[in-house]
């Protein structure tokens, strides 16, 4: 605890010491974002697979409108990233606290690069942990993995990144509990990320976050563009709750093949285990997802088929009875602007 306070003070001291009047090189304000919508049908006739987003059954449903503002002034920059819609609100994390679920902040932070190698960022940021992200433009598959659903979505805090080259970087930071605008607990989470790129096109991230009551997660996220057409990614993680024996672990493999510049096929295979708490049995699930990305300019169509199989009866069938397997199809449209 004392170490965390010292680290926090040190980071802010460096920031304050270096924050001098700058010759401002203003970049224009960039506004970008996306909208997404989908139709999903689960063959049980019920909402069934419990991973994040694309949950509505037999419904033409919406994801979110995502608006991102970004601007840089020489060494400083900001990002303001808000979303409106189910994907960015109730399906993502609890709303802003007023109970209305009106919108959600995805990113809201400022950064200061006090040298070419060191950058300090403060605010509410997309998590550094894991492979998949909330924004549908950042994922190949439209439905999400169990690893994503059960890991952190955002980490508010302060982080210091050291990047001596584009092949290596190290980040350390102090953060609130997962996914909250306001930290109501006394302690802070500690997080760290090591990035290495052994060869061009191969990125490896080792992520670590720990705290109370958040728990401890260690995560490996890596991806390799093996050829112009073929990409392989891997996400593996272990999470232990701060109290008790609960948690999860798992691994997901991502393989994508570009048939043309406009059409790609992607497969995600995941093995995931919920660790039983207080004498409960572990529950495992394997999920296989086949998606296509068909691009027409800024628009991407994503037809997708998914089948999940559990070690226990964690799904329901056509008759509403518990069963071990579930399958669904969906078609999503994602427009990035």
């Amino acid at each position, binding site marked *: 605890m004392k170490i965390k306070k010292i680290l926090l003070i040190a980071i802010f001291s460096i920031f304050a010491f270096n924050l001098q009047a700058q010759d401002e090189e203003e970049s224009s304000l960039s506004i*970008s974002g996306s909208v997404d919508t989908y139709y999903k049908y689960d063959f049980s006739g019920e909402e069934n697979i419990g991973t994040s987003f694309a949950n509505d059954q037999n419904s033409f449903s919406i994801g979110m409108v995502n608006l*991102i503002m970004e601007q840089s002034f020489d060494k400083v920059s900001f*990002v303001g990233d808000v979303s409106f819609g189910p994907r960015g609100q109730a399906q993502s994390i609890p709303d802003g606290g007023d109970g209305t679920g009106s919108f959600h902040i995805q990113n809201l932070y400022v950064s200061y690069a006090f040298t070419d190698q060191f950058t300090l960022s403060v605010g509410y940021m997309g998590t550094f942990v894991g492979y998949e992200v909330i924004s549908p433009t950042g994922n190949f598959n439209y439905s999400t993995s169990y690893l994503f659903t059960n890991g952190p979505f955002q980490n508010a805090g302060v982080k210091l990144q050291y990047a001596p080259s584009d092949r290596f970087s190290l980040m350390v930071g102090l953060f609130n509990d997962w996914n909250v605008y306001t930290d109501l607990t006394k302690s802070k989470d500690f997080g760290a990320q090591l990035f290495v790129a052994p060869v*061009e096109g191969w990125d490896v991230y080792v992520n670590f976050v720990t705290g109370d009551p958040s728990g401890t997660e260690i995560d490996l996220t890596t991806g390799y*563009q093996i050829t112009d057409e073929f990409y392989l990614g891997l996400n593996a993680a272990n999470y232990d709750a701060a109290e008790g024996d609960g948690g999860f672990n798992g691994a997901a493999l991502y393989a994508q093949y570009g048939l043309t510049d406009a059409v790609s096929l992607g497969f995600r295979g995941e093995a995931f285990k919920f660790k039983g708490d207080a004498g409960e049995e572990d529950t495992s699930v394997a999920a296989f997802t086949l998606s296509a990305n068909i691009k027409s300019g800024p628009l991407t169509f994503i037809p997708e088929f998914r089948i999940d199989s559990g070690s226990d009866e964690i799904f329901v069938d056509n008759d509403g009875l518990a069963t071990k397997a579930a399958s669904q199809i969906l078609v999503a449209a994602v427009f990035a602007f």
Partner: protein
Amino acid sequence: MACAANPLFAQTELPVNAAGKICFCDTLATNSLTHRQINDKILIFAKQLPGYEPTNDLHSSTDLVELKAFGFPVYIKRITQQISGKIFYDAAFHVSDGKVFYSFTNFLYNPYARNRYGKFVPESGKYKPLEEDFRGNTKTWEKHRKTVETTMENQIVKLKFLLSSP
């Protein structure tokens, strides 16, 4: 020389060499400049090329100035202008007998995508040669090729002016 002028043209009329690679290349005669003066001028010119940064690897000798795989950004207009990617290329200048042979070639497009923190960053390991057709958003692809053409032609005008001045 590896890159000879060739009347062949690619789809958007970018000049290509005999090997089919996009290549802006030619030989320029200089008037009353010493070998040393030419070399100095080329060095100055190379350091103002689009995308050049002091960290770039610049090889120079008395006869050759060479820059490999350095890039400049290209943009697309959505609500506001946003970076679409970077165009990487090689530049080489051979000085011989009072003449300069220049070449700009090996054009590769590295797309950018928005990361989890809301910022546009290079897509790791994805490089597409500018010679290839783009089966997707061809309008943006053509725009980038046009940007390359305009940028390189402007640089060639600058180079000619520099070498023709005392």
